[in-house]
C-alpha cells in the first residue's frame, strides 16, 4: 500500500511571545528578558509522534483539548513546520477544515470560493466549472452573495466543507467541522466522506464525536499530551479513551 502521509518522530513546540505581542516598544524595553523568553520558554505540543496514513485510508485522531490534534493537522496541511522530525505528504490537500472560517470576511461566499480555489492552485476555469456544485452542496441559497461576516458558524462550516470536497483533494483534513452543522448536514457530510473513501481518497479526521469516528475511520490514534497513547481499531481505541 502506498503511504500518503508519513510522520517520522515529529516534535513541535510553540514559543511564547508575550513581549512580542506587546509590540516593538515592549520588546525593546524588555530586550534581555524577551530574548531569554523566546529561547527558553517553549511549549512542546508534539513530542515524537510517528505514524503513517495509507492511500484511501481514513485516520481518526482523538484526544483531549490541547494535546496536539490540530497542530498535527496544521503540519499535514503545511501551514506550520515541525521543530524536529520529518513529515512527508504526497498529494493535493484540501483546505484545513476547522471551526472558524478560512475565509476573507468582507468577500461574499461566492468570491471566497474563488479565492480559496485560486490559493489552492486551481485555475479560474476549473473553479467556474465547480462553483455551482459547491454552492448547491452548501445549501446556502441566496446567502452566497452576502459577505462572509454575516454568516453563522454553521453556515461557515457548510461553505468550508463544500469547498474542501469539491476541489478534488487527494487528502482531506477535517477538524471538528461536523459539530456545528445540523443533523441533516452532518449526515450529508458523512455520506460524502464515505463516498470519498470508496474513491481512494485519504482522510484525516479529528473529532470528539466517537460515533462519527467509529463510523468512518479505519484506524484511530489517541493523542495524549503530545504523544501517541494508543493506536488501533476505532472500536477498541474509542472504548479505551472513553473508559
Amino acid at each position, binding site marked *: 500500500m502506498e503511504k500518503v502521509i508519513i510522520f517520522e518522530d515529529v516534535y513541535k513546540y*510553540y514559543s511564547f*511571545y508575550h513581549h*512580542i*505581542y506587546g*509590540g*516593538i*516598544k515592549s*520588546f525593546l524595553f524588555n530586550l534581555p528578558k524577551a530574548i531569554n523568553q523566546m529561547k527558553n520558554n517553549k511549549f512542546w505540543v508534539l513530542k515524537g509522534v510517528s505514524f503513517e496514513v495509507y492511500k484511501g485510508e481514513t485516520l481518526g485522531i482523538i484526544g483531549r483539548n490541547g494535546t496536539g490534534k490540530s497542530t498535527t493537522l*496544521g503540519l499535514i*496541511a*503545511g*501551514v*506550520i*513546520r515541525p521543530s524536529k522530525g520529518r513529515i512527508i505528504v504526497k498529494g493535493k*490537500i484540501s*483546505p*484545513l*477544515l*476547522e471551526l*472558524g*472560517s*478560512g*475565509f*476573507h470576511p*468582507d*468577500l461574499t461566499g461566492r*468570491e471566497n470560493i*474563488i*479565492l*480559496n480555489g*485560486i*490559493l*489552492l*492552485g486551481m485555475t*479560474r476555469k476549473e473553479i467556474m466549472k465547480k462553483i455551482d456544485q459547491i454552492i448547491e452542496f452548501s445549501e446556502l441559497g441566496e446567502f452566497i452573495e452576502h459577505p462572509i461576516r454575516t454568516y453563522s458558524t454553521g453556515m461557515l462550516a457548510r461553505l468550508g466543507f463544500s469547498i474542501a470536497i469539491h476541489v478534488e483533494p487527494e487528502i482531506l483534513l477535517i477538524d471538528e467541522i461536523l459539530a456545528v452543522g445540523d443533523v441533516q448536514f452532518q449526515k450529508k457530510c458523512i455520506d460524502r466522506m464515505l463516498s470519498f473513501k470508496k474513491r481512494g481518497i485519504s482522510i484525516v479526521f479529528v473529532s470528539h464525536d466517537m460515533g462519527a469516528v467509529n463510523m468512518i475511520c479505519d484506524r484511530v490514534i489517541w493523542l495524549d499530551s503530545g504523544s501517541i497513547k494508543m493506536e488501533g481499531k476505532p472500536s477498541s481505541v474509542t472504548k479505551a479513551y472513553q473508559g
Partner: protein
Amino acid sequence: MLALTQKEIKARYKSSFLGYLWSIANPLSLALVFFLAFKVFMKIPIENYALFLIAGLFPWQWFANSVLGSAGVYLGNASLIKKINFPREFPILALIFHDAFHFIASFPVILLFLFIYEKHPSLEWLYGIPLLFIVHIGLTFSIALVVGSINIFFRDLERLISIFITFLFYFTPVIYSEEMIPTQYRAFIYINPIAPLIISWRNLFLEGCFDFTKWFITLIYSILMLSVAYFIFNKLKWKFAEVI
C-alpha cells in the same frame, strides 16, 4: 498569473467607482495643498509646479499606499494563512498590483495636466514606463514584504511605518526638485532608494526623458533589497500561521 487573478478579485471589491475617485482624489488634494503652500504662498521657483507635483505624487502614492497597506495584509488574511498553504508572497503582490492599477488609472489625470501646460507625451514613455514599473514593483515589494512579515510579530510596527513614510516623503524630491538641494548634500539623496525612482518618473512624465543611470541605480537597489527582504521573509514565513 495566480497573483493577478487574486488581484482581480481584490480589485473588484475594493475599487468601485468611488474607490477610483478616492485614489485620484487623495494625491490631487495633496497636490492642491502643496501648490497653495509652496507656489502661491512661498513662491517656489519651479515652473509648471502643479504638473511637477502631480507627476511625482502619483508614483509616490503607489509606493506609500502599498507599504502602508502591507502592514495589515497578513493580519487581514489571517484565517486563510492558517488553513491553506499557499505562497505567502501572494497577499503582498496582490496589494501592490491593486495599487498599481490605481496608478495606471491616474494616467489620464497626468495627461490632462500635460495638456493644460501645453506639453505632450513622448515616445520615451513606451519603454520608460515598463522599465520604471519593474524597479518600482521591486522596491515596493521588498519593503512591503518585510513590513508585512514583521508586523505579524510586532503589531505596533504599523504606526512606526507611517512615521517612516512621512520622513521618506520629505527626503524624496517630490515637492521640491533635485536641483534645489545644496550641492554638497545632493549626493545624499541617493541613499534614499525611492529618490532616483520618483525623479525618474517625474522626468519621464514632464520632460519625456529617461535617465538610464538613475534607473540602473534603482535596479541595483531593488535587487539588493529584494535579497534582504527574501532572507527575512523566508526565516519568518513558517511562523506566520503560528503567531497570527
